[in-house]
Structure formats: structure tokens, C-alpha cells
């Protein structure tokens, strides 16, 4: 397999994996964001 083929597979896995994980975290936060609940404001 060509090295660029491998890089393409890695990029695809990284992009799809990131999208799924980030979407999972978004769903965790979605209720609070949509209802504008501010119970743990994270100021730094």
C-alpha cells in the first residue's frame, strides 16, 4: 500500500472519529445550551 494511501486512511479515521466523539460531547451539553442553564460557569 502506498504511503499516501495510509495517510488517507489515517486522516479518514481521525476525521470521522473526531466528529463522532465531539458530537457525543455536544449531546451531553445540548440540554444546558438549548435551555441556557448556567449552573457551572467555567471562568478562568
Amino acid at each position, binding site marked *: 500500500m502506498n*504511503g499516501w494511501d495510509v495517510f*488517507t486512511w489515517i486522516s*479518514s479515521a481521525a476525521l470521522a472519529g473526531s466528529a463522532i466523539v465531539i458530537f457525543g460531547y455536544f449531546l*451531553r451539553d445540548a440540554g444546558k445550551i438549548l435551555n*441556557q442553564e448556567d449552573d457551572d460557569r467555567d471562568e478562568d
Partner: protein
Amino acid sequence: MPEAGIAGLDLIVLGVYLLAMLGVGYYVYRRAPSFEEYLLAGRMMTTPILVCTLASTYYGLDILFGTSELAYNEGIVAFFAYSELSLGIYLLAAFALSTRLRRAKFTSLPEILERNYGRSAGVLGALASIIYSVPSAGLFALGRITHVVFGMEPWLGALLLGGVALAYTLLGGLLAVAVTDTIQFVLMCITLAIAIPMLMGEVGGFDAVAAAAPVGYFAPLGDIPIWLMIAYTSAGLSILVDPGFYQRVFAAKSARQARNAMLISIFIWIAYDWLVTAGGMLALAAVADGRLPADLHSNDALLAAVSFALPVGLTGVFLAGVLATAMSTIDSYTLVAGANISYDLYRPLVKPDADDEELVRTTRIGVVVSWVLGYAIAFMFTKILALVVFMTTLLTSMVLVPIFASLYWKGRKTPLAGVLSCSVGLVSVIAFYLGIQWLGTFDEVYGTYIWTFAFDGTTFSLWQEYALFFSLPMSLIGFILGNLLGADGPPVEPMEAAE
């Protein structure tokens, strides 16, 4: 349908996607948001939603089709020289800019100028931001996609699908934009991540590309002139003053979440850039073995290649991803321009004591005005992409120096410094463009004006793309002169006090 192999199932997928977008807008609308909720999602956005909206907003069809077109024609240089050289600037935006911006609790980019230099500089910044943000390129590209996919007239496709983006933006503001961006982000990423490996399998991988490619197709930096490379890298400076980026940072729940979102977005952009580049290069192999027509337009290379590689149903999902790519950019910048009209022009110039409800109402009017303006420009001008490059250069030249002086220069800042810096940046960009157009000739290969001249036995070439090298120093000189000659303005709330 002229080119892509779309079936009934694909149309159903697309229909569901569009209805979902409208549903999100309506849900937020029913809650009657305040101005801060409408424009900045109540400053409640956490890292995941920020990543989605940042990544999808900044990457539009210009990346999807522009980079793949370049990869199809020029090869791997599209990834290394054109896309990734700006990464250093993105890192600067993540580490230096996002934290400082979020802590200062601004509402818009022009407001930074208004607070530091007074109303005139704020208005100039607002005009630059509006010109940059009206969604002409996005609507133009959307029209082109609907023409290629559905055979629809471009103006009608942009009107219908751009109208959906307008509707949910109008109803729900940034919260609706960010939630729809999230769905669009997932669609963009997953569809591309599935489509490109399938395309690679169909055409025989990069070995097939190497067999079909001309010499130099795999040279990372190609044979582009070094100054042009620097100019393309400088184009990445626009993120340092991109009003859409600023709006998302202001909307972050904290400075840390804004910075983390930017860093994750950079990682995603690298993977996305490569897959788009790979798609363009693989299309070349598909043309070489006769699977795609030899007269394939390079701008359509990615779409045509993916359409033949994907099965029915997945084609519809991919097309939804393409539409998502366009709509996530259109909605965000329409809202930014609308807010500039309301918060940065109407409020300071017409009604400084406008209440929350009035600001939401005028922002909605501004959203419609900016969309209509973008639509008109999209179908009035023929060289729309050149116009967008010009607008980007214009914004950077006008506001980069005064904005960075506001954020990082603790010394004296007079109102005249803000006004002169913006004005001199504006005039010098226009003068440079007109000068090169007048003295130079249009290069059909690069699609730009180039002035070639000899000095002391050496030949030099000045491209229109070099405008920033001239305009940014001029803007800095304007700032220094304004500081030397101008009187002090009213006291400015220091950044530290706002933190």
C-alpha cells in the same frame, strides 16, 4: 439531474436534512431570546459545540472545491503549500488571541475599535466587517452546486437553499446557527471520511495517481514563487480579524474552552485538508482510466469522482454534507453582518439607548439586508472569487493593526490613530489593486494581474496577491501618525479591567 447520480432515496435524505435545520431554528425562536442569547448564544457555548461551529464556518465550499480543484491540477502542493502554511497563524489565534478576546467580554469585532478609538473607528470597522461578511461567495457556490446536482438554475438553487439558511438564522440567531453547524459539521466530516477511501479503492489508490500524474505532481512545494507562497500564507492572517471567529470566541463559556476549541479545530482542518486534496488527486486517476470524462471541469472533479464512487443513499448523504458545508458558512456570516448593521451601526449612530428587544429586531432586519446584499452581489459579478479575495485583503488591511494595538499595546491610543489606521489600510489596498491592474497584465494561468518590471538589471514581478505586504505597513504608519498627531480621546476601559 445532469452529473451526479442522485436517486429518490438521496432526495429524501436531503429533504430530512433541510427540515431538521428549519426545526432547530423554530425551536430556538419559540424561546424568544434576549440580544445576548440571540447574538452570542448567551455566552454559554462549550468546547464541543464551539469546535463544530468554528470548523464548519471557516471551511466552506471554497476549501472543498477550491483545494480539490488545485489538487486535481497541481497535485500535492495544494495540501502543503496552500493549506498548511497558515497553521502557524491558527496556532497564534488559539494561544494568543482567543483567551484575551474572551476575557475582555466584547460583543463584536467593531466594538473593540469603538471602545479603544471611539465611534468613527468603530463605524469604519463595522463597514469593513459587513463587506467581508455578506454571504456572496457562499450563495454563489450554493447556486453552482444545485446546478450541478439538480440541474436547477443557480439563482434559484441559491434562493431556495440559501433561503433555508436565512430562515433558521433569522429565527434562532447564533444558537440555531451553532446547533445546525454541529449537525452540518458531522455530515461534512463523516461523508468526506467515507467517500475518499471508497474513491481510493475504486481508482486503485495513489499508485494509480502516480501512474497518471505529470512530473512534479507529488512535489510538496511545487514550483510556485516564494513570494506568492508567503502571500498565500499571509491570507491566513484573515482569521486573526475574522468576525465569525471573534463571535464564536465571545460566545464561549470560558477562555479555556475557546482556546481548546480552536486547537481541536486545527487538528480537524488538517485531516479535512488532506482528504479534500486526496479527492482531487484521485479524480485525476479516475479520468486517466476513463471512469470520468477527459473534459471534466477541474472545479467539479471532487463532486464527480465521489458521485461515481458512492452507492445510492450515501450519495445523498454526501450531497447533504456538501450543502452543509455551504450553509454553515452562509448562516454564520449572514448573522455577523446583520449584527454589525444593528449593534455596530444602528446603535452608535441612531439609537445609543436601544433596548434588548429593539436590538434583536434590528439584528433580524440586518440579517435579511446582508443576505439580500450577498445574493445580489453573487449574481451581479462574474469574478466572485477574486472579489472575495479582495474583500478579505480589505478587512485585514483595515482592522488588523488597530485591533492588535487595542489588544496588546498598553500605551497611548488616540481616536485619530484608529481612524487613520483603518482609512490608510483601505486606501492603500485599493491603490495597490488599481495600480497593478493599470500597470500589469492579466495572467490567464494564475487568474490574477501581475506587473513585471526590471530594476537595475533584475526582473521583479508584483502580483495583486501581494497587496498585504504594502497595505499592512501603511496601516501601521497611519496608526503611528495618528498617535503622534491626534488628541487623546475619552478614557478607555483597560483590557485588564474587563477581564
